């Protein structure tokens, strides 16, 4: 919460700064976190981020949790050469020391399902990434209409 208060005080920098804000838990660095704004009637939302393992042991990202969604899953959109897009569920992503996982539109994304109330663009949503062998890593995801 400290960084939020800090950025709020920096006029004009808010959106970019928040989109670029990093959340670190010693060995894990979460950056470029955002949720795509969707119409209020949408039942799902997609979240994006990069996660870097700066530690010296492998970690496995398993999923996520947030108060706004009944379920959050790691998904990948696979697009074949003939233009077929398919969603696949990822049961986990292992990050070796130095590895980075990129969740970005058209590829891996955090899929929030059973979203009771879709947040509006400009709001922030706390989402915690969960791991098989590491503490949760929580960050505020700004809701944006377009990719930052």
């Amino acid at each position, binding site marked *: 919460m400290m960084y939020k208060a800090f950025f709020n005080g920096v006029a004009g920098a808010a959106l970019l700064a928040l989109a670029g804000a990093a959340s670190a838990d010693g060995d894990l660095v979460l950056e470029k976190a955002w949720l*795509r704004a*969707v*119409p*209020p*009637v*949408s*039942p*799902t*939302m*997609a979240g994006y981020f990069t996660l870097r393992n700066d530690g010296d042991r492998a970690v496995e990202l398993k999923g996520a949790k947030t108060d706004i969604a009944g379920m959050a899953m790691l*998904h990948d*959109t696979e*697009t074949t*050469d*003939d*233009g*077929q*897009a*398919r*969603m696949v569920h990822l049961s986990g992503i292992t990050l070796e020391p130095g590895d980075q996982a990129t969740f970005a*539109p*058209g590829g891996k*994304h955090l*899929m*929030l*399902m059973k979203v009771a109330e879709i947040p509006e663009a400009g709001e922030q949503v706390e989402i915690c990434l969960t791991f098989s062998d590491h503490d949760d890593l929580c960050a505020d995801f700004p809701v944006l*209409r*377009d*990719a930052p």
Partner: protein
Amino acid sequence: MGADCTAGEGKLRTPTVAKRRTAPLGGARPAGVSSGAAVMIPEPPMTFPRALAGRLGPLVLLLALAGCAEPREELPVNTRLGGDFTLTDHNGGAFRLADQRGRVVLMFFGYTHCPDICPATLARVSQVYRNLRDAGDADRVQPLFITFDPARDTPEHLREYVPWFKANVIGLTGGEAEIRAVAEQYGVVFLKSGEGEPEYDFTHSDYVYLLDQQGRVRKLYPSDFNIDEVTDDVQSLL
């Protein structure tokens, strides 16, 4: 300039996109002009004196760079895909494509329960529309979003979903057979996965279609198309 007008070209994955011809100038092609950039060079006469070829080098370069702006190559008509159809719009009325004659149509398929590509594509198409609206062309362009999930994407649901993008998008739904027929006309493949489960989704083609004022398919784009490229293409058909 050259980089601008070819941006996104490498991502096109469709045979309907015009192949760029190389300049038939033989040894006269100046260094630094890639074969793909020199599109607008007319075929020189057979008696073209080789002595002059070297002098024309800089001119060729200029023409190649100017070629992006104008005159541009006309988009070819795709005769394999397309055709008229009637579906139900998000206000519950009958929508016939033929009624859009005189407008350029940007059309794509998707479903509103898709969180990643579909809203992203809608947002990008909406941006194209807003660019065109700013240029005063809004009433001659019509974005269409066709769902292949009529069970969940009813007219009522689309009516709440589509206007949010503020781009005059018409959401279209219909009976499953009707939608499948339209998809086949346009070469769109979709497959429901997780059938019977409450949370099913679709494997699907994600092309965006550019239709001219006569309703003919003129170009296909991948869903991560270049916004400026599509805006320019639409304007070339107005």
